[in-house]
């Protein structure tokens, strides 16, 4: 079969002979694993989605701004390939929460990147709830530093509540915005310390990419490439000799009792291929990884591959958004850029059994963006301009990210009643949120209201316990632990059941903390790559 093209576009999508490592997924996790291994090993990366043309980014930006398009349209999510169910207590909008394609969800992401706090690694011991991680901050610290260099993080060591760090950030922090300075004053009055935000976007030219030019559409697309996305490391790894096959949908992991033998994938023309390799790294994100394991059930693993623990798919968590917004009587100059430049982690480590960790974010994009508002409504001409002037102006908002504890009844399963276009059961996200998180949202709202009151703002919206939503971080569904009866992967991210299968994803997080996950995903991906390298060298 080798040598024949398998796609209408004429690209060769046949398996790579003699591959050492097969990585499933070309988001940041897969790209970083592949990049680290490509110089010394034959690496192949399979991704379900396409290679997007970088020249199309302005067209995608237009989709981001125009009312005719929904968010998933920007990166072509939401067709029969991406069908899903959400039969939990709360609806989960899965296709708003991920991108399939080379670069993965970082094509759409916001790019806030922090390290977990030290106590996040031992929630059970320090906060009295949830499991401890089998790793601690010190184990990850060198990998965090490397991940920051990989992303070109712009930041400053000014967060008095953050974990200790030794090295400076690769790029200087983005300075505070005008509205940040208003918030800083109000927070000072209230005794709340504010600080900068580490951003995976270039404040200065870095790694061959230019500095941020202020398009302001970071989420869902940065046309300039100043925001990091995983295409950066996909290109690097290809330069080192790895093969990246796009539109290769892995549908099953063929296996014996102890090893994966091949990743079975379907090319766009419907041809099925088998990619063999010595080692496999699953990096398809926190929903598709458990789905793939469940789809790969066999006589030996009747409940799903690598699932002797029965933990595959369980303990699905996301971060919850809490927010309060309002209006000031003075201009706050919002929507110039699409990222956040001030936060407060002041309340993070007050977490205990009853209150979760959370961080506050001071938004730079509160209220409507005039250009988007201009395209909706029944008016034009002077009337429209009047409406735009009235609605733009004094908006302010404080958001928060809140930890959710893992629970058995919050899980990703298969919906046997519904299949995708290849005939495979779709993922069903049963999302359930517990009382500790809901209580914490209320607590965050109280602080947010205090800050807005101090500012003199009139509050006009609240995202509280009843109206909270997910932050699109898919954690917990193949949790890491020492005990094979309770966890799916060990602290080297190798599955307990299979000796040649590693998982690089937030799916291995035992608990989520309250920071955005991707820097930790990257650090773990680098750790997993080292473990794979060691195993390959050992077996040579």
């Amino acid at each position, binding site marked *: 079969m080798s040598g024949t093209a398998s796609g209408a576009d004429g690209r060769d999508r046949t398996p790579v002979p003699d591959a050492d490592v097969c990585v499933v997924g070309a988001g940041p996790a897969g790209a970083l694993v592949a990049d680290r291994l490509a110089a010394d090993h034959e690496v192949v990366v399979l991704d379900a989605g396409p290679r997007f043309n970088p*020249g*199309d980014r*302005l*067209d*995608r*930006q*237009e989709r981001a*701004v*125009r*009312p*005719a398009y929904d968010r998933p349209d920007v990166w072509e999510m939401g067709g029969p390939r991406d069908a899903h169910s959400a039969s939990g207590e709360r609806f989960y909008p899965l296709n708003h929460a991920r991108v399939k394609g080379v670069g993965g969800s970082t094509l759409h992401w916001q790019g806030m990147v922090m390290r977990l706090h030290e106590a996040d690694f031992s929630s059970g011991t320090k906060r009295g709830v949830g499991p401890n991680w089998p790793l601690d901050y010190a184990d990850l610290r060198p990998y965090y530093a490397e991940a920051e260099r990989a992303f070109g993080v712009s930041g400053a060591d000014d967060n008095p509540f953050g974990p200790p760090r030794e090295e400076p950030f690769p790029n200087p922090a*983005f*300075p*505070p*915005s*005008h509205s940040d*300075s208003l918030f800083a004053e109000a927070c000072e009055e209230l005794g709340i310390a504010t600080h900068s935000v580490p951003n995976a976007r270039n*404040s200065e030219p870095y790694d061959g990419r230019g*500095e*941020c*030019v*202020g*398009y*302001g*559409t970071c989420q869902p697309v940065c*046309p*300039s490439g100043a925001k990091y996305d995983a295409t950066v490391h996909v290109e690097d790894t290809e330069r080192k000799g790895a093969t990246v096959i796009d539109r290769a949908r892995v549908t099953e992991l063929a296996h014996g009792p102890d090893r994966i033998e091949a990743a079975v994938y379907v090319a766009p023309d419907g041809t099925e291929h088998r990619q063999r390799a010595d080692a496999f790294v699953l990096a398809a994100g926190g929903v598709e990884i458990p789905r793939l394991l469940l789809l790969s059930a066999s006589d030996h693993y009747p409940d799903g591959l690598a699932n002797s623990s029965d933990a595959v798919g369980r303990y699905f968590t996301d971060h919850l958004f809490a927010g309060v917004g309002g209006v000031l009587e*003075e*201009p706050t*100059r919002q*929507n*110039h*850029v*699409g990222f956040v*430049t001030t936060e407060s982690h002041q309340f993070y480590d007050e977490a205990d059994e009853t209150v979760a960790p959370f961080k506050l974010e001071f938004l*730079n994009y509160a209220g409507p*963006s*005039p*250009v*988007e508002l*201009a*395209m*909706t409504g*029944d*008016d*034009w*001409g*002077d009337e*429209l*301009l009047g409406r*735009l*002037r009235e609605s*733009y*102006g004094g908006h302010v908002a404080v958001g928060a990210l809140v930890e959710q504890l893992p629970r058995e009844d919050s899980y990703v399963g298969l919906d046997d009643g519904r299949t995708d276009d290849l005939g495979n059961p779709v993922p069903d996200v049963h999302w359930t949120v517990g009382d500790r998180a809901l209580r914490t949202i209320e607590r965050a709202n109280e602080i947010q209201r205090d800050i807005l009151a101090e500012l003199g703002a009139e509050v006009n919206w609240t995202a509280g316990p009843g109206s909270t939503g997910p932050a699109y971080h898919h954690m917990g569904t193949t949790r890491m632990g020492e005990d094979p009866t309770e966890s799916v992967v060990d602290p080297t991210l190798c599955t307990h059941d299979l000796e040649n299968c590693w998982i690089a994803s937030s799916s291995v997080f035992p608990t989520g903390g309250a920071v955005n996950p991707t820097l930790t995903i990257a650090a773990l991906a680098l750790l997993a790559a080292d473990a794979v390298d060691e195993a390959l060298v050992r077996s040579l």
Partner: protein
Amino acid sequence: MELSRRDAIAALGAVGAGAGAAYAVRELNDSPPGESSPDVETLIAAAEVVYPDEVTGLEGFVEAYARRRAAGGDDHARGVRAAIETMDDRAEAWYDAAFADLATEDRDSLLREMGVDTAAEAPDGSTAEQVRYYVVNDLLMALYASPTGGELVGIGNPRGHPGGTDSYRRGPRS
């Protein structure tokens, strides 16, 4: 407030321009302002309705913008031309003149009678929805994603415009 060719270039930089915005911007810089094609006349006539009175210099702006958005062989440009044709057909049928030859109030009325004011934009939608998408909202996006359009509202660096990383830091009076 005066719109400039720089605004048009900025607006083109802010949106997809079919064959690629970088190319379009280059072409715009290289080509002298020439005779307006009939399509451009119609777009200018529509802009006179949907842009606020404060905006001046709209001919050069719309012309420069439309050369790329309406003149190419891509789907978007074809959509703009088809929408313009529909507007002209309706103008001929209901007002006995081409859209661009109508008085501004009549143009306004015609668009409203077509239902364009209450239509939500949709590239594959009804006639009104397509006119809203390809003509009215295309023009509004061009204006309000440009520095001058942003300034009108009070935002120096509107979403979609690469206006750098200084303006977000400045206070309203600095």
